[in-house]
């Protein structure tokens, strides 16, 4: 499940992902987030993974895809993570070179 939150001028979009991310569930999440990106063209997109209870490598696909979608209009993607296991999967992918990871040890780099 994804909850979308906008700031008042709609320049920033936070997509709070709740529950499990796998290949099955990622599809619906992707469609919902992309629709919001296409419509509002936010400058800043925060993918909030702090309420994710399970994630496999489909979560990487979800981030990579949103990075590509938002790049069309110059939006920047931030990923908020707390869970060590999810951080480990992110580091295996090297996605931290494309998007900014916030939360935990990297909080200062925000």
């Amino acid at each position, binding site marked *: 499940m994804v909850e979308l939150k906008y700031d008042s001028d709609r320049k920033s979009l936070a997509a709070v992902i709740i529950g*499990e991310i*796998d*290949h*099955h*569930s*990622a*599809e619906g999440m*992707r469609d919902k987030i992309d629709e919001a990106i296409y419509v509002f063209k936010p400058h800043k997109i925060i993918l909030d993974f702090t309420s994710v209870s*399970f*994630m*496999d*490598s*489909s979560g*990487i*696909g*979800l981030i*990579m*895809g949103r990075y590509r979608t938002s790049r069309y209009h110059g939006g920047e993607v931030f990923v908020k993570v707390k869970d060590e*296991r999810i951080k*480990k*999967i992110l580091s*295996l*992918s*090297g996605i931290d070179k494309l998007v900014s990871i916030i939360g935990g040890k990297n909080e200062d780099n925000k």
Partner: protein
Amino acid sequence: MKIINEFKLTLDSRSINESFARVAVAAFVSQYDPTTAEIQDIKTAVSEAVTNCIVHAYPDSIGKIYITVKMTDEGLVKIYIRDKGKGIPDIEKALEPLFTTGKEGELSGLGFTVMQSFCDKIKVRSKVCGGTTVALFKKLNLK
């Protein structure tokens, strides 16, 4: 090392079953009082292997996925995930991080990398048009 328990499950290669497959394997292993981290490792690896069957083994059809889990007296969990799908022509290439043949959707090419990272050992056997078996081995620290 003796097998003390075994569990078999056959599923359709429908993506809705990804969650069921990892939860079923986790429930079986939970009888041996693993740590939360061990269970999460197993769930993640099973999810990757089952997704591979759905996306790569049977890309255009629904086939069967055969899961066997064996528990040894020394706490080694052996999970075999088998399909009768199209097979992997070059296993070495498939195991490379970020390599993917998938053209549709958003595939990260990290499935095997995640399995290797969360298990103690993995083995892949495959035959083009003859299917693939992925074996995942995870040692539990039995209390």
